[in-house]
């Protein structure tokens, strides 16, 4: 949340704001599709059910899933920025 920015009130956004957002590519609901990535990445288990390569002693199966934690958080944060 940027502190200096108006929240736009509770009644939605004006026409000029809408046009500005369209140019910047923000506000589009298509950005939500990015959030499908962790579902594909984590629910297709055979893709990562492997011991190798290891990282810091962790088998691939484990560090791959750990890596999705910050990845999903960043993706969600990015979408939050784009759809506001």
């Amino acid at each position, binding site marked *: 949340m940027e502190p200096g920015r108006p*929240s736009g009130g*509770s009644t939605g956004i004006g026409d000029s704001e809408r046009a*500005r957002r369209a140019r910047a590519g923000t506000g589009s609901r298509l950005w939500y599709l990015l*959030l499908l990535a*962790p579902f594909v990445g*984590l629910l297709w*288990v055979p893709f990562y059910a492997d011991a190798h390569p290891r990282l810091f002693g962790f088998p691939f*199966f484990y560090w791959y899933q750990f890596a999705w934690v910050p990845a*999903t958080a960043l993706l*969600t944060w990015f979408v939050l920025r784009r759809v506001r």
Partner: protein
Amino acid sequence: MIATSVNGVALAVFVVLFAFVTVMGFVAARWRRGDLGVLNEWGLGGRRFGSVVTWFLLGGDVYTAYTFIAVPALVFAIGAQGFFALPYTIIVYPVVFILMPRLWAVASKHGYVTPADFVKGRYGSSTLGLTTALTGLLATMPYIALQLIGIRVVIAAMGIKGDWPLISAFVILAAYTYQSGLRAPALISIVKDTLIYVTILVAVIYIPIKLGGYGKIFDAAGNALPHKTGPTGKPGALIPGNDAAYGAYATLALGSALALFMYPHVITGVLSAKGRNVIRRNATILPAYTFLLGLIALLGYMAIAAGIKPSSPNSVVPDLFVKYFPSWFEGFAFAAIAIGALVPAAIMSIAAANLFTRNVYREYIRPQASDAEESQVAKLASLVVKGGALAFILALPTKYAIDLQLLGGVWVLQTLPAIVGGLLTRWLHRWALLAGWAAGMATGTLMAVDLDFKSSVYQLNIFGTSITAYEAIFAFVLNVVVSVALTLLFDLLRVRRGADETAASEYEERGDEPTAQPPAEQAPALARG
């Protein structure tokens, strides 16, 4: 490896920390003071919590003490399959990000306190509201009982015998929840999460150093797991190795993720936020707890590498701590777990009390109840719920609570079509949803009974192929199919739909943090562009 005598130092640290949060629980009534004679204030903290408090509150609500005890115990017993808790608590947040701001918006507009309030308002059906409420109550009660197991395990690990410490801890909890409502667990969750973070970070750095590093820990687990047998008699594994294991792992993660935010106590946490952006921001910062949970799960492998022989299935973590931590830190860690049980137990009992008061008492027993009476009934209901959970744990074997909690996850997922369907569309028919719910509840329960509660993974042989998946997912799929098919049929037969009291625009209301940005609110034109 439970200590046979009472550990004085550990107990002293434990008691001091416990006393500290007890004081906090009572003081919480004055925090962000509101009229506690109104359900919105007692049961939702006045819907005023900002991003930070919501983060602690939901963290304390979702990642419970039982999780910290049970997940490593499962990983210890069967290996990789128990690790599904990690993908589960990752994919849940995109779902939260999309759905929960909508629920918050419409709930704050109409004063909904429970998910059943929303269902009733959306479909104009108090029957559907009642089934949603009862399902939520059924799923939450055993969950409260499980938190007691968390407390009992650590008290036993400190060498204290008898039920009186558990009873006194719960009486104290009941007293400050009665007085302060949701403010008590919200304030305590800040202490709880700090203690948990410190404990786990120390554990996942210190214990691996003692054991020769993570590589050695995984090697030891990889060697030991094939010789272990889980509850179903199958051997454990470090990496899932066949289609059945893949299917079970993925559906357990998906089913649990979908069910989590249908639990009344989690929705209570969501609705107590002060704006929808608080929830969206939390969807990006709550994964910090998921990372912690992943590390906690690995305590199971550390226990294997350390050669722990747990005295009971749930004592893997306490036994590991007793073996490696000095007494004072042992007391610290056990206090973290016990306080980690109090926070969710308080929120769960509040959520159950809200459900009873709003969707049973006011709906069916005394529709003319005043706000003050409603709040008073909820306070009393929270006491009854906690007393019931305590009696359940003291009188019956632990196994029943665990079995019921497993079933609770299956049941609560069956409220998803009505809740989430309602958040996204008004297309589904109220009676179709009711039939779908009944079909899902029956199927899920029968599957669990058929498996004798030994596992929640069911193997279904259909159309010549065998599908292995979490039983909740089978029940859920049937639920959705029935709901959709009957909606088509009922519309064809022109069966009357209920009146929807919500409007499409109300799901998009921002209602965000008016107090957080006063200058911008006063002069919106200046800063724009």
